[in-house]
């Protein structure tokens, strides 16, 4: 697919790359943004930039890592341009969506999805990013290390600490 997209410039091959990564990238961005719309916009922009990058002929070592890296840079650019960022958002609309019957059925554990989302948002960026990549996107610590620019050991420690931090937040309902 990568060869087809880069060399043959095959839009359909790029479409397959899009299909493979769109949900993960959306999730990755979603937990960094204040709204679903912002996450959608940046996800779409990520793929536009990815195509552009592939057409420049630069070497691509790991397509997944590259895509996350572009998304990460776009989020950084987005926040750099914002001065009035709300740190903790408890968007009512999002809460409704998260707890709609269909979603609730899929969420079969004892922890409420909206609570978990709010808890995640209370974590610092680095922790939230590590947990999303590890447990929602199910990437290996090695892959996460490439995306975050750390070594595997440091990434494992980061995930462990992030999990501990999440547990602390969830045990303190007043914070959520």
């Amino acid at each position: 697919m990568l060869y087809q997209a880069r060399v043959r410039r095959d839009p359909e091959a790029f479409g397959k790359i899009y299909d493979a990564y769109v949900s993960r990238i959306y999730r990755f961005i979603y937990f960094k943004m204040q709204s679903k719309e912002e996450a959608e916009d940046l996800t779409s922009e990520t793929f536009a930039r990815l195509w552009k990058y592939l057409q420049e002929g630069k070497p691509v070592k790991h397509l997944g890592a590259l895509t996350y890296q572009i998304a990460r840079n776009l989020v950084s650019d987005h926040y750099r341009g914002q001065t009035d960022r709300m740190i903790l958002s408890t968007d009512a609309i999002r809460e409704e969506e998260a707890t709609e019957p269909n979603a609730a059925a899929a969420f079969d554990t004892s922890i409420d999805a909206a609570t978990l989302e709010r808890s995640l948002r209370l974590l610092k960026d680095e922790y939230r990013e590590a947990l999303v990549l590890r447990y929602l996107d199910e990437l290996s610590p090695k892959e996460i290390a490439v995306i975050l620019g750390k070594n595997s050991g440091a990434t494992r420690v980061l995930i462990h600490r992030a999990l501990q931090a999440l547990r602390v937040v969830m045990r303190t309902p007043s914070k959520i």
Partner: protein
Amino acid sequence: MTDREIKNSLRALQGVRGIGDPDDAWKRRTREQLLSKIMQDLMASPAAGWSFAASEWVRLLFPQAFTRFVFRPALVSVGMLGALLGGWVTTVSASYNSLPGDRLYAVKIAAERAQANLVLNPGDRVRLRVEFLGRRVEEVAKIAERQVPGKASKASVAVEKMKEEISTVQEQIKTLKQSKPDQAVEVAKLVDRKAGEFNVLLSSSGREATAEVQSAVKAAKDLMTDASVQAVAVLVENRGDAAVQISASALKEKVQEKITAVAAENPAESVALDEAQKRLAKDDLAGALSKVGEVTSRAASSTPPVLPLVETVPTSANSITLPLFGQVTGSGTSSTTPLPDKNVSSTPR
């Protein structure tokens, strides 16, 4: 609440619409928009070349580490051996007549660089560089005379190469002055003599050419004049040295020639050149050359910008930085250093 429960809950978020999973309609819509934009881009730009496809195949067939540490070095070694043993002489000979923009031009420059690096004596090395400078001048002249595609851009690239060569010669003379002043004087004489020849060659070139090409030739002439003035400045500075072997009157005459020649090319600079003339009348050769040098430096630094030989491709996705995968960086071009403003002898070149 155990770690396992938290992990399971996080995994379960994947399927929660709006949180872990984007809306299907949005995914479809975005996909269509993206592919439609790509199709438009493709219609507007040509397909990738065969060399890109070949390098991509190598990348796909061999692991990155193998390519980087084994394949690429081996390929480079074999290529170098092949070039050195088999086709070196042929290639270099064939490249001898190449011009900027030709495929073999890079070979010509690389061969010259290798040749210069093999010369141990610094004086001989500068002489060799002067010879190369002659080649650059010939290239400008040939481009101006011939009917070649992209003539204006090739001419401006050739002038830029010439500028680099002059800069190298001047730098090396400067170094030579510290270590072997007598040789520096010899080379300065050579540069002065050759500059005259080169200017004659350039003057007879490109008379029928377009304004852009003529402007490139003019820039080349300005650069040569500046280089010759700086060469004479070296002679003036070392006039007490036995190696100069030019009498005071002959040297004065030489400075007078420079003033006259520069005045003919730069009629608007009469004030500075009158001042040079006054200084010369007072036997202040260095002062006179300094004023002339100001004029030639100004003329040389107003060289028109280099026109691109090929269309440049954007190298990065706007403001995004991709530290994992590296970025392409551009490199500047060297330029001639202007003459000292005040006194030639106080800041020798």
